[in-house]
């Protein structure tokens, strides 16, 4: 009997607990409902009041127009600022392109100069000159002349695009190349029907005199360019100037070194002979 009573009491407690929770929940809902009704009434009241008061509407309109003007003004300022930033960006972009190009050119000039002065062997120096004219300038047919101190003429010693024997010896001061060597100035000309080698009757379009302190060393004569190259750029002009000075120095120095090595070797031979 007491077990039944206890069970009954437990169940009653559980039911009461459910009822209490339900009552609390209902109370919360009623409070929310009350609050929402109050807010709704307040909104209705404001709406009714606003609609009835013409002055308030005018004031509101005025405030809105003023705010619109302010925003328009801000927009115009921002747009102006944007345009000036865009213009500055474009300037930076153009300047970046210029600097990139300058960087490219400097890289070419640095490499050409480095390679020219990297050897004291005359044949290697000639090889470097050929590489620069082919790879950096883009010449297809050209020749390197060396000055002959005996008769003052120019003799072909290295070439590309045609055998060396095809390039004529140039008497002192004669012709396009000879004159450019006398003047000490790079000479360029546009030839109609140009781009042919000497055997085909072609004439050089560029002559780069190689001089060291007024002393003629030789010349580079370019007859034609690679087919993908349409003309000479500012970089090419810089390379011509570089070759005129540095290639001449490289050749001169390497020849001097080679001669002095030979003399040294001869003198050493004599000394060894005398002392043996």
């Amino acid at each position, binding site marked *: 009997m007491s077990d039944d009573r206890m069970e009954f009491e437990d169940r009653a407690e559980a039911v009461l607990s459910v009822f209490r929770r339900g009552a609390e929940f209902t109370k919360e809902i009623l409070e929310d409902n009350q609050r929402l009704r109050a807010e709704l009434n307040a909104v209705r009241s404001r709406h009714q009041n606003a609609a009835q008061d013409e002055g308030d509407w005018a004031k509101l309109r005025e405030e809105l127009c003023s705010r619109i003007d302010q925003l328009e003004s801000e927009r115009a300022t921002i747009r102006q600022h944007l345009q000036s930033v865009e213009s500055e960006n474009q300037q930076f972009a153009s300047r970046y392109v210029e600097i990139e190009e300058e960087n490219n050119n400097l890289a070419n000039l640095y490499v050409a100069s480095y390679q020219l002065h990297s050897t004291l062997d005359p044949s290697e120096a000639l090889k470097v000159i050929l590489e620069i004219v082919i790879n950096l300038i883009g010449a297809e047919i050209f020749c390197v002349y060396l000055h002959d101190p005996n008769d003052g003429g120019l003799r072909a010693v290295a070439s590309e695009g045609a055998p060396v024997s095809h390039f004529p010896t140039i008497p002192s001061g004669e012709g396009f190349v000879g004159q450019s060597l006398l003047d000490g100035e790079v000479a360029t000309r546009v030839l109609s029907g140009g781009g042919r080698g000497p055997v085909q009757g072609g004439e050089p379009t560029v002559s780069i005199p190689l001089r060291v302190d007024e002393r003629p060393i030789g010349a580079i004569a370019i007859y034609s360019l*690679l087919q993908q190259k349409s003309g000479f750029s500012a970089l090419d002009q810089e390379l011509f100037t570089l070759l005129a000075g540095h290639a001449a120095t490289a050749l001169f120095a390497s020849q001097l070194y080679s001669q002095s090595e030979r003399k040294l070797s001869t003198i050493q031979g004599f000394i060894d002979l005398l002392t043996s």
Partner: protein
Amino acid sequence: MANHRILIVEDSPTMRQLLVFALKRLKDVEVVEAQDGMDGLRKVTSDHFDLALVDINMPVMDGLKLISLIRGEDNLKEMPICVITTEGAQEDRDRALQLGANEYLTKPIQANNVLAVAKALLKRT
């Protein structure tokens, strides 16, 4: 440790130096040089590269032969190859592309062109 390794196969020391100069602007890139086709083949088959820049006219083995041998290797079929050459004729370009080159640049080169092509080809790897 470099993220990418680039092989330059070019017989002209002047061109090699110029290409190295240009490619050094790429981040995390190691550049290896080969002076002819045979040297290039030895290097490319013994080590991993993400890109090869190949000249065509070279002693010992020319660039076209090198490209066809590279594409004959199973593990090198997908390696990007850019040809850099003096040969500007369309048929030379077509031939190189048929043999498996991905890009074809003609000399004289602009360093920023080489850089742009190298970046684009490295992105594929």
